[in-house]
């Protein structure tokens, strides 16, 4: 076949109309296509006046503008006709142009309202529009400054007026000389810095007791502080003086406040400690203010005086209570009124008294001139003892570990674990009281003074061995120590005897160089005896060491001789020396007799037996030393050896006071030197 030419294809819009109905005879009734206006109406229905669809809105805006002119009259006619339900605008409206018409109508309404308003506003006949002014947000700076200045002025006015008042009162106070420059409040401040005050109601009360320091004394010390009344300042002082006796005008009150102390604490008080032997006073101390405080003295002095009175009262009451309960002494202390009397040693009494004078003009203490300088020890001790009692009351050691109960002393805590028995626990609770302690201290003072006095006296009287006493500068309240050295003058390197004496409360203990410890009682005689014995021993010992230097040989030596006269006190000491060549013997006996006269020493020279000596005119020097014993030499070339011992050694005594030499050792040295030379 031959190729045909192009096929024409025609594209057509299916313009077939929808079949509306088919009649019974087969004829189709086609649905008429929409007319132009119908299609326009259909498009107009789709106009969205809410403006959600921008494209549609732009498009429909022109369509609306176009259709508004056409359907202007249609709208009028059909407005009443169609009364489609407006509520259901999504469903088919009865009239397609209804929504368009409604929108346009509302737009017209609004525009007409605007037009009316503008016309009215412009016409100014019925309504005038005025602009409303907003409130000014910030004031002008000059106004602010003004306000501030005014406020400050008011405040400064208040301050200035107050200052004027104060200045006026200060000037007034200055002009009046009585109260000087001190104000009540400043004085109160100073008072408060020194004393404890509190305000009770309208009154100011203070407390001057030692309660917060641990005292448990029941008597309280409450004083009252008041303003000092202005005494009338007229020159005539007698008229306002209340005392009956004429007095000089009272001194101007030096402070603006006055303190009122309780009556029982007024005046001054002191504790008087007095050691009495028969009628003499050995030592005394006054505790307290020696000077009376006048009644209108400064409040500080008055308060201190009152506090001192309270302290003395408490101290005395403690001492009195202990004196009544003290049973450990052979003679118990006696309490009579304001005085406690205790016996220290037989014949020596300790008197403690409380002297309290209220008038302020206390009688002066008994004018016993005590040259002893240990008063302060007793005074200080009593104060310290009471303070110690206070302190133990207030200071309780805290427990370790921390959960243990408080209030128990450390030793008692160990009571359980260490299984203390009842006796040990009871002993732990026993404490020494103040009175016992002060009695011990006084006894020690007496003993020490006595020992000092005795040593000084002995040193003055005995010159031959010098007695040097060194007292320890640091000692306890009941224990002192002195080191005594006996030394011969000129021979201190070769001979010194030392001993130490410990002085306790009721006894002395002497420790000698060789280690012997001797316990002495408080009797002064015992110390004297001991020292005299030591002096006697010293002479012999010194002689022995001297003999070593000179070459003499010690034949025998004994510190406690059992031969010779029986001594009244102690024992005599003696030694025997022989000369280097053996031709002479020296026998020395030293006895501790009473030191008036000096302890007597007897020296004997021993000659070998069968020695003949001539007693010629050696008596000019009264020496019994036969210097010329030449004939002796013949018989005694051999000395004492080979001699007939049954013949015995002849001893001749020496009068030491006739020998040359300043002390015994010096004399002996001379003697030994001479006797050594005898051929």
């Amino acid at each position, binding site marked *: 076949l031959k190729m045909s030419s192009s096929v024409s294809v025609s594209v057509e819009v299916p313009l077939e109309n929808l079949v509306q109905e088919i009649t019974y005879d087969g004829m189709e009734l086609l649905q008429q296509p929409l007319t132009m206006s119908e299609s326009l109406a259909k498009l107009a229905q789709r106009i969205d006046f809410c403006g959600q669809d921008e494209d549609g809105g732009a498009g429909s805006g022109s369509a609306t503008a176009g259709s508004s002119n056409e359907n202007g009259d249609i709208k009028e006619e059909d407005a009443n006709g169609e009364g489609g339900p407006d509520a259901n605008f999504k469903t088919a409206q009865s009239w397609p142009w209804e929504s368009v018409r409604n929108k346009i109508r509302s737009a017209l309404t609004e525009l007409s309202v605007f037009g009316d308003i503008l016309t009215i506003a412009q016409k100014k006949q019925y309504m005038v529009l005025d602009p409303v002014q907003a409130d000014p947000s910030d004031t002008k700076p000059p106004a602010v400054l003004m306000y501030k200045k005014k406020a400050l002025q008011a405040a400064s006015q208040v301050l200035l007026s107050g200052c004027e008042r104060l200045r006026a009162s200060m000037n007034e106070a200055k002009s009046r000389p009585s109260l000087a420059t001190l104000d009540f409040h400043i004085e109160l401040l100073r008072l408060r810095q020194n004393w404890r005050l509190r305000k009770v109601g309208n009154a100011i009360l203070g407390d001057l007791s030692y309660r917060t320091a641990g005292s448990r004394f029941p008597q309280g010390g409450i004083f009252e502080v008041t303003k000092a009344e202005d005494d009338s300042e007229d020159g005539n002082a007698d008229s306002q003086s209340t005392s009956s006796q004429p007095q000089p005008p009272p001194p101007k009150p030096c402070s603006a406040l006055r303190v009122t102390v309780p009556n029982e604490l007024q005046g001054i008080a002191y504790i008087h400690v007095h050691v009495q032997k028969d009628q003499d006073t050995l030592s005394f101390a006054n505790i307290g203010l020696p000077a009376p405080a006048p009644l209108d003295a400064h409040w500080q002095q008055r308060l201190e005086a009152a506090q001192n009175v309270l302290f003395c009262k408490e101290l005395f009451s403690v001492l009195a209570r202990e004196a009544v309960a003290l049973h450990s002494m052979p003679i118990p202390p006696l309490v009579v009124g304001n005085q406690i009397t205790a016996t220290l040693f037989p014949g020596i009494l300790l008197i403690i008294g409380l002297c309290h004078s209220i008038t302020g003009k206390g009688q002066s203490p008994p004018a016993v001139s005590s040259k002893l300088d240990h008063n302060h020890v007793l005074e200080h001790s009593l104060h310290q003892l009471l303070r110690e009692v206070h302190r133990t009351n207030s*200071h309780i050691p805290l427990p370790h570990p921390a*959960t243990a*109960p408080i209030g128990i002393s450390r030793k008692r805590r*160990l*009571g*359980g*674990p260490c299984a203390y028995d009842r006796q040990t626990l009871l002993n732990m609770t026993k404490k020494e009281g103040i009175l016992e302690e002060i009695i011990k201290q006084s006894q020690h003072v007496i003993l020490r003074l006595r020992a000092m006095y005795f040593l000084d006296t002995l040193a003055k009287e005995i010159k031959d061995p010098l007695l040097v006493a060194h007292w320890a500068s640091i000692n306890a309240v009941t224990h002192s120590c002195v080191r005594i050295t006996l030394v011969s003058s000129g021979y201190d390197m070769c001979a010194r005897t030392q001993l130490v004496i410990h002085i306790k409360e009721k006894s002395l203990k002497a420790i000698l160089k060789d280690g012997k410890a001797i316990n002495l009682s408080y009797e002064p005689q015992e110390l004297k005896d001991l020292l005299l014995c030591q002096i006697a021993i010293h002479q012999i010992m010194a002689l022995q060491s001297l003999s070593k230097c000179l070459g003499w040989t010690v034949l025998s030596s004994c510190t406690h001789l059992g031969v010779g006269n029986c001594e009244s006190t102690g024992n005599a000491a003696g030694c025997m020396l022989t000369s280097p060549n053996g031709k002479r013997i020296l026998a020395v006996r030293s006895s501790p007799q009473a030191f008036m006269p000096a302890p007597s020493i007897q020296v004997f020279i021993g000659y070998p037996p069968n020695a003949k000596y001539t007693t010629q005119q050696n008596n000019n020097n009264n020496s019994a030393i036969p210097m010329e014993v030449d004939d002796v030499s013949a018989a005694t070339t051999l000395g004492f050896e080979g001699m007939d011992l049954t013949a015995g050694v002849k001893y001749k005594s020496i009068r030491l006071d006739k020998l040359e030499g300043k002390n015994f050792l010096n004399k002996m040295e001379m003697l030994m030197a001479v006797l050594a030379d005898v051929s």
Partner: protein
Amino acid sequence: MDGLEPTAKQTELHQSLSAIDTLTSAMKSNVVPNQEYLLQGSILDSGVDILLHRLRGLCDNTDVGLESFHDHEACFVLFNPAAQQSQPLTLRVRKAVDDTAAPWHLRYMGQPELGDKNRPTMVRSVLDIGVGSDIVEFLKELGCRREFDFITKGFIFRKGRLKIIVGKLYRSEAGKAPHELEPVSGSHYVEMSVVTPTGQDIVGEDMRNLAEQIKPLVNLDKVDHRRLP
């Protein structure tokens, strides 16, 4: 014949056997201190210095200075196998590490008394006993088990008969030097306690007054130990 009359020796024996009677009569007549009144609180470590200053001003012994303590406490528990529902017995043994001469301390603390709610403090019965260092062995022999132990360091104050403890807990580990202690928390505990015989409730008022003085720093209050988590 000495059959009828008691001899001197027998009377003496009779008197010495009455030590037990003495003990029981002491316990009956309110002499033994076995009641503890307690208030507890805590404070952060940062505020402890201020609290210590405050307490130094309020309490006694101002001239001595701060008293510190360093203790090691161990808790022992004894179970009662017979009665299953009863509480086991707890005992605490405390020793002072800084004071080795001081005796060790054994403490029994009972349950707090469920008294009236108005009482300002907590009350419980305690027994304080001083013991030697062999107490640990003794308790082990009795059958107690060692539950826990801790170390506490701090300061102790006293005002009258009130005792105030400010302390910090540390873990106790064997072999650690004292300066390497590891604290349990970042705060200190504060305890105010008084141990008295029964019948002295007025001490609770004193405790509350003192607690008021340190109020803004630390709140001391009675703590119900059963409600603690």
